[in-house]
């Protein structure tokens, strides 16, 4: 039986490399559904990714042009490809470590230049591929392969970071909120500016098992509980809010 997204997938690639329960597979589905809903022509889309589990979301699975680059550099490669051929729709899909730590400089400069790219950051708050070391996005206190006593540092607020750098639109949703996340991706893809989507995507293998989530189901449930809307957040106690993730759309108000 033909599945409805088959046309968007490279048929010779038979399976994804993700662990069972990994959020990146859900995100992959959501991104392709957004593209299908908008009826974008895959022949005109270039997907650019860096290095990491998340960077494998488009490459080699997506049936368009895919550019799987170096760790941290996806946005720089994408900038050249887009500037040299402005007719291309260029979508960057990569991990939190990739885009915001080693590649953080490219991220803020692309936002500043307002380069017409949609950047989708699959944020699992950890370096998944390399074995679960602490990331610039890991929550305060998170136990990781390099912070056995808990992460001593604050994570980035990525949406505020890119807005501060000049992005017009940023949104944060979790893969446990597929419809709103998809709507945000569609909105970003329809804009002709630099747009940023932070997609929270659980990594049960490297993050969950070290931080009291014994199964991927448990991790998804915890993520659903932790995510609050901006309206809910406005009414919440500051101390409680620190343990929550504020989801929603962000722009310059």
């Amino acid at each position, binding site marked *: 039986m033909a599945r409805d997204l088959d046309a968007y997938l490279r048929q010779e*690639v038979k399976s994804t490399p993700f662990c069972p329960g990994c959020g990146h597979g859900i995100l992959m589905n959501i991104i392709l559904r957004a593209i299908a809903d908008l009826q974008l022509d895959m022949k005109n889309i270039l997907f650019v990714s860096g290095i990491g589990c998340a960077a494998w979301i488009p490459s*080699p699975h997506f*049936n368009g*042009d*895919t*550019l799987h680059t*170096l760790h941290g550099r996806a946005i720089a*490669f994408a900038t050249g490809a887009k*500037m040299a051929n402005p007719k291309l729709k260029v979508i960057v899909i990569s991990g939190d470590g990739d885009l915001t730590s080693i590649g953080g*400089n490219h991220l803020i400069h692309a936002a500043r230049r307002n380069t017409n790219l949609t950047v989708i950051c699959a944020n699992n708050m950890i370096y998944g591929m390399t074995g679960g070391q602490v990331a610039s996005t890991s929550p305060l206190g998170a136990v990781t392969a390099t912070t056995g006593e808990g992460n001593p540092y604050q994570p980035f607020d990525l949406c505020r970071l890119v807005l501060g750098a000049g992005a017009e639109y940023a949104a944060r949703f979790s893969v446990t909120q597929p419809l709103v996340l998809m709507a945000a991706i569609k909105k970003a893809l329809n804009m002709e500016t630099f747009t940023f989507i932070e997609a929270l995507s659980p990594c049960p293998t490297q993050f969950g098992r070290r931080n009291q989530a014994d199964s991927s189901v448990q991790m998804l449930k915890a993520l659903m509980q932790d995510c609050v809307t901006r309206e809910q957040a406005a009414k919440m106690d500051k101390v409680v809010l620190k343990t929550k993730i504020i989801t929603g759309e962000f722009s310059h108000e």
Partner: protein
Amino acid sequence: MNDTNEINSALSPGSYFFTGNEAAAEGAIAAGCRYYAGYPITPSSEIMERMSQRLRDVSGVFMQMEDEIASICSVVGASWSGAKSMTATSGPGFSLMQEAIGYGVFTETPLVIVDIQRAGPCTGQATKVGSGDLMQAKWGSHGDYQIIALSPWSVQEMYDQTIDAFNLSEQYRVPVFVMSDEAVGHLRERMDISPTLRVTNRYKKSGAAPFGTEEKDGVPPMPSFGEGENITVTGSTHNEFGVRKTDDPNVQEKLVGRLNHKILNNREEIVQSESYYMDDADVIVIAYGFTARSAFFAVDQLRKTGKKAGLLRLKTIWPFADKLITEIGRKGKKLFVPEMNSGQVYGEIRKYADCEVIPYHQTNGRIIHPKDIMQHIERIL
């Protein structure tokens, strides 16, 4: 195979009084460069400044990026979007580019890098000359690979070799380096622009594998993004269609083998040199870049007094002129190798020449004076 065609020069034909850096930018525009990305660094910045103006004239794209890593990465992206693309830099920037140079090699991306070498290591003497980046050009990125590196000795050659660099990069699908130096980059002298020039076009073949070929030259055709070819480009080991194959030893060996062979097997065609007074010479100077100018002056002066000195000028550094050096070595002459580094090319010559090879190193940030070369040759003779 690529086709080539004759096009009109971008500037009107005639004589110009350019610096080497200006000439490199003009060579790029003439060769069809339509994307430049760079980051300021002495002594190469004039290339970037001129490109920012000249690309406007030809509706190309100029980007001043946030660093050299971003510059070279965006050049790779632009090349895959179909634009002939380049960057220019000097020592510290060249160091930052190394990982992405490996990406360019492994994904067989045509691109040009002009390195205006300065006195290193590190920040060194930023405004002074050196030629210490030659081994870095060859081996700076990790793994086992081949690139092409040229070495211009004049303003004319900054123009000509930048054109050659674009043509070679399209022909062999490989990053090509113009390994110039501060002295040639900042030299101002007369150069000529001919009415036409020959450019190499990208080899395209719809539906063909972009990363594998049975053709003898070992260079597959290259599609561009947006052509509906569903290209997968990756810096991981890949099969001929670009799909990752990171476990299969045969795929790894075949790919790395082809990437090396496509340069080494064609090296007779790639390697260029010039010789002066070599036939009856007792001592042959082997030099390149600015040092070859001093060597030429020295040899010419010595000949006027009846002393039998000759000069071999290497126009291509990588791939190395191994066969030529072996042949010269067989003639049992003495070879003298002056360099503005501690013997980077001397070591290569030693590998291939079965005769006495005498090095001369100078790493003080100054050019090697003809007088010094003359004195040394007289002592050796």
